[in-house]
């Protein structure tokens, strides 16, 4: 288990270094995801323990957003002052984006769909 946690952290570290070295407009962990993905492609499979490690972390993925979410407290006043445009934009635009994007992919990706 520890070994596979080290794999994840090492990929993240590699991602952070790559971002600093190349100036890519991406966060280190996202580049780390690409690094791990490339590693899996090279290896041609997922080591069994890494599989379990990932499932354990990802099964509680939404918990990991709670600390950042509580940051709402820092901007309560600013949001309160422009509540209508912020809430309206967040709610309507998010829903529109979901619908339009899903339609686009369903239309374009017809061939590969397994239903």
């Amino acid at each position, binding site marked *: 288990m520890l070994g596979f946690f080290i794999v*994840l*952290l090492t990929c*993240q570290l590699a991602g952070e270094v790559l971002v600093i070295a190349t100036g890519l*407009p*991406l966060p280190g*962990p*996202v580049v*780390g*995801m*690409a690094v*791990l*993905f490339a590693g899996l*492609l090279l290896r041609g499979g*997922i080591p069994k323990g*890494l599989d379990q*490690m*990932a499932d354990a972390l*990802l099964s509680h*993925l*939404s*918990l*990991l*957003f*709670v*600390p*950042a*979410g*509580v*940051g*709402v*407290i820092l*901007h309560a006043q600013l*949001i309160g002052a*422009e509540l209508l*445009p*912020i809430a309206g*934009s*967040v*709610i*309507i*635009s*998010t*829903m*529109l*984006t*979901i*619908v*339009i*994007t*899903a*339609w*686009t*992919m*369903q239309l*374009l*990706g017809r*061939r*590969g*769909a397994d*239903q």
Partner: protein
Amino acid sequence: MNGELQAIWVYLAASPLLTLTLTLVAYQAGIWLYNKSGNNPLVNPVLIAVLAIVALLTLTATDYRTYFDGAQFIHFLLGPATVALAIPLYRQIQKVRESWLAIAVTVIFGSLTAAVTSVGIAWLLGASRLTLLSIAPKSVTTPVAMGIAEQLGGLPTLTAVVVILTGITGAMTASGLLQLVRIRDPRASGLAIGIAAHGIGTARAFQISEVAGAFSGLAMGLNALATAILLPVLFQLLD
């Protein structure tokens, strides 16, 4: 007795253990309510946990920094969890290979849709210029969104908050919306959720299906890249 209680409170309030435990308990309570509701996506555990913690911090006059001293240990795991998204994605490699062109076009179009609709609607509803610039990258994962907002001249910390609210909105509404407009392709569901609602949406997409989750994680990463490149260009054209 009262003095003793006071002493215990002072000790606990200064230790990261208290807010770390509080975060886990609040989230567990959110999960409990979500299960009680028959897994209704509108009963969102992140939203419940955030509201409960915000209420408690306000009542006890605790500032965010003190809270974060404990909560940072949970926050830290976001990094390795993001890296771990490569694994479900690898499991779906065949599906990604088959439809890479459709994925690429959808991500670019989706990224533009998210930016144009968020700025357009906020502008129609009378948002200030600072808010418009801060809200534009709202569908992008937090660190990239903050970077884009800074580059545009917005307020990165406001962006961080709007990004979280966007993720929660997406997680709450996605499955209902996708059913309503008859999306049956789990790849399309996943891409839509990942583009519109980044990591919080991705957590929700994994509850829908493994394919949707994997495509959502992929879409989150690609959308961050697409938006970081396209949004500054878009604003330059408009100004």
